[in-house]
Structures are given as C-alpha cells and as structure tokens.
C-alpha cells in the first residue's frame, strides 16, 4: 500500500521542525486524504459548473435573488474560514516542532472559528427563511441552500476530524504527526471549497 | 461454538422454537381459510366495482380484517425457523461466514414484504365509502406484493443449497437431497415473479403456477425444513449428551 511509503516516518519530525527546510518532497499527512480532496474537488466543480450554466440560463432571476443575500456576511464568513485555515496550518507547524501546547492553542482557534462559522451560517439561513426564501422558492435559493448546506456538512465532518487531531495532541503516547497533517488537509479543503462557494453565490454576476 | 452447559441450553431453546412451528402452522392455516380471497383466489379480472363489492360484502368484511390481523401477528413467526436454519449453516464445514451472512441477509425480507401485502389488504378493507378504483389499487398492490415478491425466498433457497454443497465433511450437516430440494423449490417459486404479465392463465395471481404451485411449495418447504432441522437438532442434542 502506498499510504505510508510516501509519507515519511514520524521520528524525523523534530529535524524538519527545527530547520524549516524540506530537503525531500513530502506529502503532508496520509496521501489517501489527498485522494479524497481531489474527488471532492471534482464533485464540487461539477456542482459549480452546473450552477454557472443555470445562472447564464436565467440571469435575471439569479441576479434578483442574489441581491437578497448579505454580501458582508459572506465576507465575514470567508475571513473566519481563512483564519481557521491559517491557525490549523500553525498547529501543524507547532506539532512538527514538538510544541504540543502551542499546537493545541491553534487547534482551539480553528475549532472555535469552525463553530462560529456554523453558527453564523445557520443564523443566515434562519434570516433568509424568515424573509420567505426557502429551498423551493426558486432555483437560485435551491442552489444557495444546497451548496452552503453541503459545505456546512463538510465543516461538521471537519470538526470531527479536529476532534481526532485533539485526541492525538493531548496524549503523549499518540501524537501522530501524520494524523494531525491529515486532519489539517481536510480542513484546508473545507476552506477552499468555501472560498469558491462565496464567489459563486455572493460575488459573481 | 463454546462447549459445555451453555450449548446444551442453546439447543433446548432451539427445541422449544422448533415446536412452536406446528402451532404456528395451525394459526396460518386457520387465517388462510378465514380470508375469503384465498381458498378461491380473487381473480385479477374483477372490475373496481366488483372488488369493492367483494371487500364490503358484510359476509366477507370481518373475515378479511380478522384474518389479516392474525396474519400480521404470526407471519413473522417464520423468522425463528429461518434463524435456526442459519445456525445449521453456521455449523457447516465452511472456511468463511459468507454463506451464513448471505442467508441471514435474506431472513427479514420475506416476512417484511408479506407484512406490506397484509397492510395493503387491510387498507383496501378500511373505508367502505372509498372510491372503488382506490380499493382496487390497494387490492392490486396487495396481490402483486404477495404473489410476485419471491426474491428473498428464491435467494435463501439457493444460498442454502450452495451452503450444503460446500459443506464438505465426512458427515455433512444436511444430506445432499435437501440441497436438491431447495433448488427445486426455488425453481417452483420463481415464475410467480412475473405474475403481473397476464390477468388470466397459470401465471396470473390466481393461476395454477403463481398461486397454487408457489404457495404449496412454500408450505411444503416449511414442513420439510422443519423436519430436517428438527432431526439435526435432536441429533446434536444426543451427541452432546453422549459427550457429557
């Protein structure tokens, strides 16, 4: 199986963390996770293309409905997501350096941002539904609820992955650098999917 | 398999479950005779008005409802019998549990589908004032589900037969004829799957093949399997007593 031959053994983490140089190319985390990332990326790309085709097919309805969304909320959501991505990247760096307490702090920032993102998203849905815009209102709102809903499910799964990372970092007997990196890779995917969804739903005209 | 006292208890339990079968047969037979649509199976050619009139004929209505309620209670009583067969497959000289798992995967399906048919009959008989075409719709759903839903029966017969063929030991759990019998009964049951193709003739749901052959085969299968499983259980009991 290729999964472990490609990633380096856990005991070279201290060396890499200290020098910040990467002499040999290394895939962060399990390569298996990258397969998932690419499958998800392809599936979501298909959704995005379908969305754009329908956008061009019914521009007036899409534009009008799009104007009902709060662009500022989208921007705030994006900044939260980017911050969470940054802090999980720091968490990986601290883990490699063997500073597990600092790594845990960054992990908490990521998880907090993830929870905040979810709360804001659910609140946004409540506001939209309160104004009478539901999944069945029109095709734009079908896409809106579908894409944000699918993404939120990924956030929730990402939070579970962060729980696995937490489980690794808190126990000195485990501390698998590979699993920390794997969880981080999933979280970054959740981030870049949101970046695209933000553009398509809130910005693109 | 663990050894010692616990196995003896298991087999006594199986013995009790086995002896529920004759009781359950009587209940099934009584409900079968009580349901006015079974002894002379209802024709698929009946018009919506005739179907509605049949259900809400005061002579029939109570018998339809009570027989279907009793069927609903006791149809599922077949499952302990099927589970006992699964236990016999587990005792066979197989290297993997695949055959047992395949058989277990089929156990719930048949009774579930029978429950659905039963519920469709009860629905059809529920409100006399309902539009006859709706009564006919539920009557069709009931008969098609009852007659054509043979997949689990066919598959479990074939799985059992293959399991017996693969049971390669000096004294197999079941004799080879049980496997042949299961393949034969699978073949006899299978044509009923095509029952909706015609409204007359042997394939129709009141026909010789889809109704009589299929249901007599199922009854025969249950009786034969009860007897051979019972023989196995008493043999296994004797062996344990000798060993003890």
């Amino acid at each position: 199986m290729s999964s472990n031959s490609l990633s380096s053994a856990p005991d070279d983490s201290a060396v890499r963390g200290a020098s910040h140089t990467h002499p040999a190319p290394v895939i962060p985390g399990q390569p298996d996770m990258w397969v998932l990332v690419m499958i998800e990326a392809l599936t979501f790309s298909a959704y995005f293309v379908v969305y754009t085709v329908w956008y061009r097919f019914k521009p007036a309805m899409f534009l009008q409905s799009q104007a009902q969304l709060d662009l500022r909320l989208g921007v705030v959501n994006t900044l939260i997501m980017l911050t969470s991505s940054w802090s999980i990247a720091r968490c990986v760096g601290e883990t490699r350096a063997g500073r597990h307490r600092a790594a845990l702090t960054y992990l908490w920032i990521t998880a907090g941002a993830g929870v905040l993102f979810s709360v804001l998203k659910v609140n946004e849905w409540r506001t939209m539904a309160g104004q009478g815009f539901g999944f069945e209102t029109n095709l734009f709102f079908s896409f809106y609820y579908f894409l944000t809903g699918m993404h939120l499910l990924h956030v929730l799964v990402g939070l579970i992955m962060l729980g696995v990372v937490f489980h690794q970092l808190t126990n000195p007997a485990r501390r698998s650098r590979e699993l920390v990196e794997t969880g981080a890779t999933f979280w970054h995917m959740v981030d870049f999917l949101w970046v695209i969804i933000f553009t398509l739903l809130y910005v693109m005209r | 398999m663990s050894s010692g006292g616990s196995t003896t208890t298991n087999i006594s339990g199986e013995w009790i479950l086995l002896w529920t079968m004759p009781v359950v047969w009587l209940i099934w037979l009584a409900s079968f005779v009580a349901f006015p649509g079974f002894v002379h199976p209802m024709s698929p050619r009946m018009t919506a008005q005739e179907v509605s009139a049949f259900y809400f004929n005061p002579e029939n209505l109570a018998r339809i409802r009570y027989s279907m309620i009793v069927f609903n209670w006791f149809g599922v009583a077949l499952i302990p019998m099927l589970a006992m067969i699964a236990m016999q497959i587990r005792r066979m000289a197989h290297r993997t549990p695949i055959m047992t798992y395949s058989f277990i995967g089929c156990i719930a399906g048949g009774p579930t589908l029978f429950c659905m048919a039963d519920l469709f009959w009860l629905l059809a008989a529920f409100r006399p004032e309902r539009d006859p075409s709706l009564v006919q719709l539920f009557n069709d759903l009931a008969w098609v589900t009852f007659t054509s839903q043979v997949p689990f029966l066919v598959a479990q017969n074939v799985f059992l037969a293959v399991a017996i063929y693969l049971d390669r030991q000096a004294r197999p759990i079941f004799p080879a004829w049980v496997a042949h019998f299961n393949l034969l009964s699978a073949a006899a049951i299978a044509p009923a799957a095509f029952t909706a193709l015609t409204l007359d003739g042997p394939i129709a749901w009141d026909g010789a093949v889809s109704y009589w052959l299929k249901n007599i085969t199922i009854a025969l299968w249950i009786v034969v399997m009860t007897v051979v499983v019972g023989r196995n259980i008493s043999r296994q009991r004797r062996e344990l007593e000798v060993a003890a």
Partner: protein
Amino acid sequence: MKGTLAWRWRHDPKLELWLAWVTIIVFYNIFGIVFFGMTRTQPPPPPWWDHARIAQWFSDHHYGLLIGFGIIFVMGAFAAVANALIAYSMRRMSVSPIFAYSYLIIYSLAAVPGMLLTCIALVVGAMRPDRDPALLGLLYDMGFLSFSGTMGIFLIGSVIWGIAILLDKNRVLPKWFGYFNVCNAWTEVVVATCCINKSGPFAWNGVIAFYINMVVFAVYTGVFITYLKKMIEREDVLQLSF
C-alpha cells in the same frame, strides 16, 4: 487439472469468496440491464409529466416493466451476497464485529424500500393500462421517489464501512477508500433534494440529484468491487473464527 472450473469447485480454498464475488458481478450486470435497458427507469423519466403522458409512458414500457422487474423479483435478493462479502471484509479488520453486523443488518433492509417498492409500484402501474390516469400518476411518483427511499441506509451504511476501514490496522482495504465512503454518503444527502424539487438540476432526473450522484456511485461501486477482488486474492487461507 489445476485452475479449471471443476478443479476450483472441488479444491479452491477461496471458493466461497470467489462465488460471492462472481455473484456480485452478475447481480450488478443484470441490475444494469434491467434498469437501464429493459425498463428504461434509469435514467428516470421527468417528474413534470402530466397524467396523460405518464399513462402513455406506462403503456409504452408495458412489457419492459413487467418482464424486467419480474427478473428483479427473481434475483433481486442475491444482492445479499455483496453485503455478506462486505461484512466479511469488516470481520477481517481489527475492529469490533459490531461494524460488520450493523452493516449487514442495515443493508438487508435496503432492498425493500429502495428497490422492490419502486418495482412493485411500477409493475402495478403497468399491469392495468386502463386504470385512472391520476392513479397511474400516483404509482409513477411512488415508483421514482422510492429510488431515494434508502437514503439513510446508504448514508449510515457507508459511514460505518468507512470508519471501519479507517480504524483497521490489518490493511484489508486502502484508507483512501475509507475516505471515499464519506463521498458516497454525501450522495444520499444530495438525492434528498428530489423529494422537494420537481424540475431543474435537483429533480429526480436532474443533473445534480441524478447524474452527478450516479457517477460518484458508479465509481464507488466499481472501486469496491475491484478492492474486494484484491482482498480475496491477497487473503491468507487461515480459518477465521466467527
């Protein structure tokens, strides 16, 4: 002669596993021929047809539906072998047998609401072309909505298999396939939209709710059949205690 079918039937120690694997191949092929070829129920016809058009569809596909689904009624339950083989793959993993048993039971439910109910509704529709078209419309909806009647089964079932693969230390199946199970679980979330929208990409014949999902599911099925084969080829011939 070693290697011939007769030899394998008598002596191949992996006979049970190979029989199961071949049954899966045969099952999926017949399934594909019946649903895509004979009955034309995949890809599904549109949900927005009026009753007259639906009645027309039933009479156009009268024999296809009745014969095709008759075949399903004969061999539909052979899918149990696939579930058995997958449950067995989990028994070889270093996880609790609960995973295998949950999967087996969950998927044993699947055939009734997800496949047979569809077939029953469409067969009852096809058997009487002279039935009130409004009732034919009801049976049509019942048939095609029931395709998504197993959302929870595939959702929970895939997650169970996926978690078992990720926890497993015996490397029975590759980790990436464990993650892929999560993707297969998503398809069941996506398909839920077809219970709400009657046209567009989220309808039951829509690009998202049907086609993209179908591609993911087809790739998933192809991958797991391939990896089950590799598992059987690799497997040692030791007796598993169960």
